[in-house]
């Protein structure tokens, strides 16, 4: 432990019952402990300047103030003035931790002494360190070759960042294409129907135009490894390349309908694009194979409207709930009803008989309350659940991303920004948001910003000779920030990835990992000092 002892500074909190505290008795108690060298009382720290601390240059400062000092930037002024590095200054909120929590009659002196000793011990054990910022590597890998991926690649390429697009080569049509196909507000007349595939090809040509963009074949990806400033991808050709950031625009796939002879939305879209006549009775059965999401409901309405107008066929939509919470869906829903599309809201007792393609659907309609029976519709569409395509799923598993119900490669916690995954540096394009690409670009730009990524204050430090290389920390870290160092056969932390939560230090069986400025020893001493 370095010899620098602690100077404890306390605001007298004139604004609170601070004045009732017997400070001189406090000073003598504190001086007895070997952690605190000197005690200083400040009258209303939020107004007084910071010059009074000049005499204590070179000492570690423990400041007992309140959130107002932080808001008015007084702490940062003190740090600049005395040139204190991180680990030499620590502040704690006396008002919130003490005065607010304890009634007046409790003897606050004793509590104050314990609190100061406890915080002082933590500061005493802390080693000062330079604020470190690491810039991630240059290149960006964009996974997926749908519209979202290509538009992201184009936007990044325009800022002359080198982008490589890992094409999944999955040319199948995924749900949500109707809205891209029909949904444009300036949707042209029926004749010139630009299929989403053509739009995708034209987008791809524009992206290919940029010289700093390269397309990689889909099965090129072999394995993957995280390094300090990004991710090293090994490709089947044996080539290794490093990327600072990975952006996933996952291809979605619609589950095939289990009823043989029924189509799912993707098949229907395929028929429309190649101009098949969809005459006769077309029935959409929603909420049967899976609960329909608003995007799929909007697709069904667009498809129904198109078929009704183009082929004047009899369109029926059976559903449990009309999902109209997406902007523009309610108008579309009313429009469809005006155009004569018949909607049935069915109860649980709906039965579907399927004798080799001739369907019979029977149930009670909630609107009117009487039974309905649909016999042998020409086309039956049962939208399936939209899930990550197998290739995207494998890619997400290879990157060890936490996924929500095999549809969103993101952890099930609010605390990650909209496009963040559980791995810092891997972003996900969020298909449903209107300007999802703009928020994705913001996140990528924030990562590539000139300041670089700040290394977390409580980063783990691995004690080389204690570590038994048991990999518990590698398996436990939710952000995959711990890797192995094969030469020294010891666990190693990736400074840009670690968020400082301390799960590794808590689970390490050999107690070889200690967090910087929050070591197990100092925590234990800090608690002991509390009494």
């Amino acid at each position, binding site marked *: 432990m370095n010899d620098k002892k602690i100077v404890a500074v306390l605001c007298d909190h004139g604004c609170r019952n601070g004045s009732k505290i017997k400070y001189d008795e406090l000073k003598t108690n504190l001086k007895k402990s070997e952690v605190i060298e000197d005690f200083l009382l400040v009258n209303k720290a939020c107004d007084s300047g910071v010059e009074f601390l000049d005499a204590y240059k070179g000492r570690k400062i423990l400041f007992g103030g309140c959130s107002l000092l932080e808001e008015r930037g007084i702490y940062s002024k003190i740090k600049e003035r005395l040139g204190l590095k991180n680990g030499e200054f620590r502040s704690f909120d006396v008002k*919130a*931790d003490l005065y*607010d*929590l*304890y*009634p007046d009659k*409790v003897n606050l002196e*004793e*509590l104050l002494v*314990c*609190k100061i000793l*406890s915080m002082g011990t933590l500061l005493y054990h802390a080693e000062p360190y330079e604020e470190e910022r690491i810039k991630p590597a240059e290149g960006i890998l964009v996974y997926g070759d749908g519209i979202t991926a290509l538009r992201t690649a184009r936007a990044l390429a325009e800022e002359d960042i080198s982008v490589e697009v890992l094409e999944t080569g999955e040319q199948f049509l995924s749900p949500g294409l109707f809205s891209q196909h029909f949904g444009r507000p300036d949707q042209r007349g029926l004749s010139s129907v630009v299929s989403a595939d053509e739009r995708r090809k034209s987008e791809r040509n524009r992206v290919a135009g940029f010289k700093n963009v390269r397309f990689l074949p889909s099965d090129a990806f072999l394995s993957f490894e995280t390094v300090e400033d990004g991710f090293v991808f090994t490709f089947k050709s044996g080539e290794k390349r490093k990327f600072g950031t990975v952006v996933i625009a996952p291809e979605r796939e619609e589950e095939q309908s289990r009823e043989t002879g029924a189509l799912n939305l993707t098949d229907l879209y395929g028929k429309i694009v190649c101009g098949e006549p969809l005459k006769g009775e077309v029935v959409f059965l929603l909420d049967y194979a899976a609960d329909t999401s608003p995007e799929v409901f909007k697709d069904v309405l667009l498809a129904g409207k198109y078929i009704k107008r183009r082929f004047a066929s009899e369109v029926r939509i059976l559903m449990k709930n009309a999902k109209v919470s997406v902007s523009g869906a309610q108008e579309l829903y009313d429009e469809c009803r005006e155009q004569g599309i018949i909607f049935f809201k069915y109860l649980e007792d709906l039965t579907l008989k399927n004798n080799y393609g001739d369907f019979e659907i029977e149930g009670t309609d909630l609107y009117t309350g009487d039974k309905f029976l649909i016999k042998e519709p020409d086309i039956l569409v049962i939208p399936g659940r939209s899930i990550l395509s197998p290739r995207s799923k494998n890619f997400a598993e290879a990157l060890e991303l*936490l996924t929500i119900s095999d549809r969103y490669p993101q*952890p*099930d*916690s*609010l*605390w990650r920004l909209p496009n963040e995954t*559980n791995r810092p540096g891997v972003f996900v394009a969020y298909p449903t948001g209107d300007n999802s690409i703009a928020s994705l670009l913001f996140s990528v730009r924030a990562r590539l910003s000139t300041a670089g990524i700040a290394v977390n204050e*409580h980063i783990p430090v691995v004690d080389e000779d204690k570590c038994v290389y048991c990999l518990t920390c590698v398996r*436990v870290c*939710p*952000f995959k920030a711990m890797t192995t160092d094969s030469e020294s056969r010891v666990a190693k932390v990736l400074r840009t990835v670690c*968020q*400082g*939560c*301390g*799960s590794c*230090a*808590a*689970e390490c069986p050999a*107690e070889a990992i200690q*967090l910087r400025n*929050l070591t*197990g020893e100092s*925590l*234990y001493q*800090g*608690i*002991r000092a*509390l*009494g």
Partner: protein
Amino acid sequence: MEESLLIIYCSEGGRKALQKMSSEGFRLPSGVCTFELPCTGRINDVMLMETLQNGVRGIFVAGCREENCKYLDGNKRALRRIKRIKKLLSDAGIEGKHIEMQTFGPDEGKRLYSAINDFAGKVGVS
């Protein structure tokens, strides 16, 4: 302060619940002191056992709600770890009631206050 009770809370959900509790005028009993950690996932069983061993009457851990942890699974890890220690204590003949963990949303001040009082009553701190 031997007869004291220790509250360990995380600087996310735990701190917000404590602030909400104090802003609603609830006060902690005298024999209780608080200690803050970045995340409840940081507590390991050596720290808890040695603190219990030095005579602290009880440890109450207040973490964030499940699925609401800023470090994704810190609170789940802490819940399981404390369950293991309670079992270890009750096997060793010391009732496991000396240590307990509950999860709180950011504005569950009243619930936190009643949880701390029940725990204090159970463990015998004034």
